[in-house]
């Protein structure tokens, strides 16, 4: 190193040492009490203020830190701070500019009465950076505190203090993700300020801005403040905001307001006008579906500085969604909140509001308007709104549904997390439904009320009741119709989006109405059916899970079911348990069957049914293959004629069953479980029988009696065995059984049938009786002992057994019939002898013989055979229609009876024409009675071969009523 360099270095070193020593000296000097006091005094004298410093320190390099600082001006202001840190830049000192002023927990109290005063001169001090942490500003008026604004954090730059100086304050506004800039110009009596809030620029990796150019303005407010001496101050504000983000919403609009402060600076009257674009979507996402437009608002009110209260005296709103008005009060301490506010919104077009409704309601066309009246309160970020929405004269129309009138009252409570509707009332008039499947339904009036609470992440549940009047429905072919239906019910509906399911609990009662279902009619006023459905529907797999589904009918009972139905809207598949503990078949018969079926089956109008059924069954399958299995019980069952001529019961039944409705039957697996049938008593006229019991089974549609039914009747016994229906479900008319009768007393039997009584016995065995839809056939024979002889009946059949025109067919032959008994029984005079014969192709329809071929002839037993005059006369009447008259009169005077050698006839009846032939034909003559060789003897010859049936009936009636013509 050269000498000059060495010398220069030596000099620099000395200077640095001197500076260091000077800095050290200053450091200690600042900390001295003397320096602190001197500094206080100097600052006070130079500023004209009272300055107090607690401690004073110098921090490297040029930062002066004072603790517990107090600066005040009597009746002006006072400033205190816990710490004041002033950073100096030696290069700026000459321009009276401080680099940075930082203050912690400062409190600035200002007497507004002294603001704008002539004041003392102030030093033209400038600040490059101002940092305030946890500051408080208090406005006083004399001793009265007017306003306090705490928790102020501020970063400002380039602040010029002084009479004509300007202020530029900048601060980050994290809530808006922007930066705010406050520019204030003018003097204390007339200030102009501009507030700008800009969106924050995104910083690049090396600190540069990602987006070139100026950042967008979110808010721009221009204010002019003027305060004349001894006059109230006023301010005019105008501004606009664009995409101003508040609570995740972006607001765009304008604001223009005028504020008049009173002389005491207590109250500020304000009025103004604002607009908000994209209303209402800009305010809340709940209304994002509504069409957006511009909201115009005009307002007026008072702001009270001491109470930090804003009273909105009036507010008028206008938009495409109606108009509104309101008033209220907002508190700003400790945070902005609405203490009370009322609002009313009217003329809201329902057609616009429909967009808030779920599908398909949002596709209908609406007419009419709605109105909302309400009030709100609470913190600004957690407002609670209560009110009622109403619509008086609405109408709606959809593709399939319409209503001529709609009235809605919807009380609501809307909070930060929940929208609650309690007791909403709906009333629709002339509600019509025309389905695409051509089913139609309508109600004159539908009333409903509902309550629900809508919360985020909570399933929606709606509770309510409904009532309809004048309901009706019609199937496409008009064969299923309902009219005058009045329904009353309740419902709970729950939506569970997480599981894509809906739950509902519906109870519906039918108070009145009439139903026509095909040919079946029912007036529902008496049975008053009620339906209950407590189930969940899972849309993802089209499944209905029924917890409890029930149908109840007055005087009939209740049937409940639970289980599942899969493919509900396609081809339903059932897996249900159904049960009833008390089902009255008599009530069901009276309500639904008697009147509907009595024309087809007149006997139904004569019977009554009693008893109590209970059953439990499992239903499985679809409509084309459905099975049911379970157990059926009947107690105190009864079947009787209403005239009480006959009665069967009490009947008890316990029957396990398994039946199926399907194209094909399933093969039986294992033995069928059996039950029991017990008939305690049966009465037919004066005949009683019972008890009768049997074990029965119903399995795979086959109903079988495992034991014969034995009944003591008419002095004998009837045995019905092997009673069997192969398929009682699909072909109930097909059955088979065996029948055995043992020595039934004909006296009792004919008396019970109201026939002319005659004695004898009836015994028979029909091993098999088979019944199909149109015929009942037998094989076997029934023997009757009667009139001293016997009769055998064969080929017994009944055609159309279940029809009013049932035709009974049989053949019979008889032997050794004693004519004495026969003639006596039928009051046919007196005839002795024995007859035999046959009856072929006997057909009885409607209780009358339709056809027969009869052959009857006497059998010579060797004894005398006689016939009385009375019998002769009756035979004559029967064959000719006329009395023997004078012919017998002459002879009868001498004889009571005549001998005969043989008698008989052949008769053929068909189509009401009876052809009568004698027992013997001689030439053209038909002999009904052939006289004996020995007198007195008589022959009866018939010249009449064809007799009309009605004529025959007339003759028989005449015979019955006639007295003997001769002695």
């Amino acid at each position, binding site marked *: 190193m050269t000498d000059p360099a060495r010398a220069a270095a030596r000099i620099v070193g000395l200077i640095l040492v001197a500076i260091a020593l000077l800095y050290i000296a200053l450091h200690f000097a600042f900390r001295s009490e003397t320096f602190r006091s001197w500094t206080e005094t100097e600052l006070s004298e130079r500023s004209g203020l009272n300055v107090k410093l607690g401690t004073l320190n110098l921090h490297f390099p040029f930062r002066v830190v004072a603790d517990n600082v107090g600066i005040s001006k009597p009746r002006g202001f006072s400033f205190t701070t816990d710490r004041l840190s002033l950073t100096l830049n030696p290069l700026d000192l000459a321009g009276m500019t401080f680099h940075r002023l930082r203050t912690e927990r400062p409190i600035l109290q200002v007497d507004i009465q002294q603001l704008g005063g002539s004041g003392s001169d102030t030093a033209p001090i400038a600040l490059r950076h101002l940092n305030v942490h946890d500051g408080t500003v208090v406005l006083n008026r004399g001793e009265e505190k007017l306003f306090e604004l705490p928790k102020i954090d501020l970063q400002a730059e380039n602040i010029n203090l002084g009479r004509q100086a300007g202020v530029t304050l900048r601060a980050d506004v994290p809530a808006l993700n922007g930066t705010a800039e406050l520019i204030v110009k003018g003097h204390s009596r007339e200030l102009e300020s501009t507030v700008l809030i800009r969106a924050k620029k995104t910083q690049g990796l090396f600190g540069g801005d990602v987006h070139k150019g100026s950042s967008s303005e979110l808010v721009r407010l221009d204010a002019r403040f003027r305060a004349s001496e001894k006059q109230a101050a006023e301010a005019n504000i105008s501004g606009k905001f664009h995409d101003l983000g508040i609570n995740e919403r972006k607001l765009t609009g304008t604001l223009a307001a005028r504020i008049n402060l009173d002389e005491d600076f207590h109250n500020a009257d304000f009025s103004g006008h604002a607009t908000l674009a994209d209303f209402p979507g800009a305010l809340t996402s709940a209304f994002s579906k509504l069409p957006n437009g511009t909201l115009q608002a005009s307002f007026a009110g008072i702001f009270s500085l001491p109470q930090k209260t804003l009273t909105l005296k009036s507010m008028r709103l206008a938009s495409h969604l109606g108009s509104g008005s309101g008033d209220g009060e907002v508190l700003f301490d400790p945070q902005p909140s609405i203490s009370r506010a009322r609002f009313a919104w009217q003329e809201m077009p329902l057609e616009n509001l429909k967009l808030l409704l779920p599908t398909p309601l949002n596709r209908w066309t609406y007419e009419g308007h709605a109105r909302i009246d309400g009030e709100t309160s609470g913190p600004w970020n957690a407002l609670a709104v209560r009110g009622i929405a109403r619509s008086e004269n609405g109408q709606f129309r959809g593709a399939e549904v319409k209503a001529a009138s709609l009235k809605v009252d919807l009380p609501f409570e809307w909070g930060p997390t929940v929208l609650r509707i309690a007791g909403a009332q709906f009333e629709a008039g002339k509600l019509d439904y025309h389905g695409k499947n051509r089913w139609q339904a309508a109600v004159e009036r539908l009333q409903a009320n509902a309550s629900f609470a809508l919360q985020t992440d909570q399933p929606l549940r709606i509770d309510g009741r409904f009532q309809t009047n004048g309901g009706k429905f019609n199937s496409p072919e008009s064969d299923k119709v309902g009219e005058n239906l009045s329904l009353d019910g309740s419902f709970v509906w729950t939506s569970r989006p997480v599981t894509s399911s809906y739950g509902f609990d519906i109870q519906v009662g039918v108070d009145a109405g*009439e139903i026509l279902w095909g040919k079946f009619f029912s007036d529902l006023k008496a049975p008053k059916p009620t339906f209950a459905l407590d189930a969940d529907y899972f849309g993802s797999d089209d499944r209905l899970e029924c917890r409890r589904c029930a149908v109840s009918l007055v005087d009939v009972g209740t049937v409940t079911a639970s289980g599942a139905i899969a493919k509900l809207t396609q081809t339903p598949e059932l897996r249900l348990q159904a049960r009833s503990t008390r089902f009255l078949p008599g009530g069901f018969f009276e309500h639904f069957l008697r009147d*509907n079926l009595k024309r*087809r089956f007149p006997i139904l109008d004569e019977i009554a049914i009693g008893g109590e059924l209970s059953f439990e069954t499992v239903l499985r399958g679809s409509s084309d293959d459905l099975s049911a299995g379970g157990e059926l019980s009947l107690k105190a069952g009864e079947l009787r004629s209403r005239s009480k001529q006959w009665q069967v019961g009490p009947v008890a039944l316990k029957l396990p069953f398994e039946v199926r409705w399907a194209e094909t039957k399933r093969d039986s697996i294992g033995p069928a479980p059996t039950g029991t049938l017990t008939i305690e008593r049966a009465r037919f006229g004066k005949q009683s029988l019972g008890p009768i019991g049997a074990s029965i089974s119903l399995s795979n549609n086959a109903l079988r009696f495992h034991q014969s039914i034995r009944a003591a009747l008419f002095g004998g016994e009837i045995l019905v065995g092997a009673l069997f229906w192969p398929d009682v479900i699909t072909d109930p008319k097909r059955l088979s059984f065996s029948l055995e009768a043992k020595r039934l007393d004909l006296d009792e039997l004919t008396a019970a049938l109201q026939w002319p009584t005659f004695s004898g016995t009836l015994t028979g065995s029909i091993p098999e009786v088979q019944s199909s839809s149109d015929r009942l056939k037998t094989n076997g024979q029934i023997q009757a002992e009667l009139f001293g002889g016997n009769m055998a009946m064969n080929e017994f059949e009944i055609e159309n057994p279940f029809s009013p025109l049932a035709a009974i067919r049989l053949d019979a032959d008889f032997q050794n019939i004693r004519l004495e008994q026969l003639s006596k029984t039928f009051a046919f005079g007196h005839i002795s002898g024995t007859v035999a014969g046959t009856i072929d192709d006997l057909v009885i*329809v409607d209780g009358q013989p339709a056809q027969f071929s009869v052959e009857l002839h006497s059998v010579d037993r060797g004894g005398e055979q006689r016939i009385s005059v009375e019998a002769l006369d009756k035979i004559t009447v029967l064959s000719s229609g006329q009395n023997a008259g004078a012919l017998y009169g002459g002879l009868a005077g001498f004889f009571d009876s005549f001998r005969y050698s043989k008698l008989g006839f052949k008769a053929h009846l*068909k189509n009401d024409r009876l052809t009568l032939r004698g027992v013997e034909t001689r030439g053209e003559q038909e002999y009904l009675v052939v006289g004996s060789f020995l007198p007195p003897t008589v022959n009866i010859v018939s010249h009449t071969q064809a007799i009309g*049936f*009605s*004529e025959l009936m007339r003759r028989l009636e005449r015979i019955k009523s006639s007295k003997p013509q001769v002695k």
Partner: protein
Amino acid sequence: MLKRTLFVALFLVSACVTVNIYFPAAAVERAADQIVKETWGGPGESEKTAPQPQSRYFDLPAAIANLSFIGAAHAQEADINVSNPAIRALKDSIKRRSEALKPYMDLGNLGIAQDGLLVIRNNDGLSLKQRAEIKQLIDAENRDREALYLEIAKANNIPNENIPRIKSIFAKSWIEQARSGWWIQDSQGSWRKK
């Protein structure tokens, strides 16, 4: 000898008369008119009285006189038989029911179709109960009418394939004897008031 033989042979041949029994349309018509009148018409004839008992005889000269040398002959149509218990029961049933059906015929709710059966034309002015009632009534009425035609065929040994003809003849009678103001259907299927 030869002439006599030929004459006898000719006589025998001509005496072999074939009697063809055709469908007794005229007799069925008479029967249909009478039954319709008895059941639905005004005061009808009393039931045909049975023929008085007569001795049977054979009028040989008349029979010979009626012989024709033409091979086939047509039997003169006698009345068909329309009286047996089944037919009487059906007629009674139809007659009893007619009083319940006539008001609905007068109102136009029911009409007589071209096949002679009753149909529901409209339900105007009817309660549901009345609609159920007339449905049951016309089902029963049509069932009885069909059964009547079947019984007439059976009683007169008319083959089943001719039952539609009986039905057609009865249809004509039902329509002809319908009261003025009742709705009837013509052969083209159009409805008109009688």
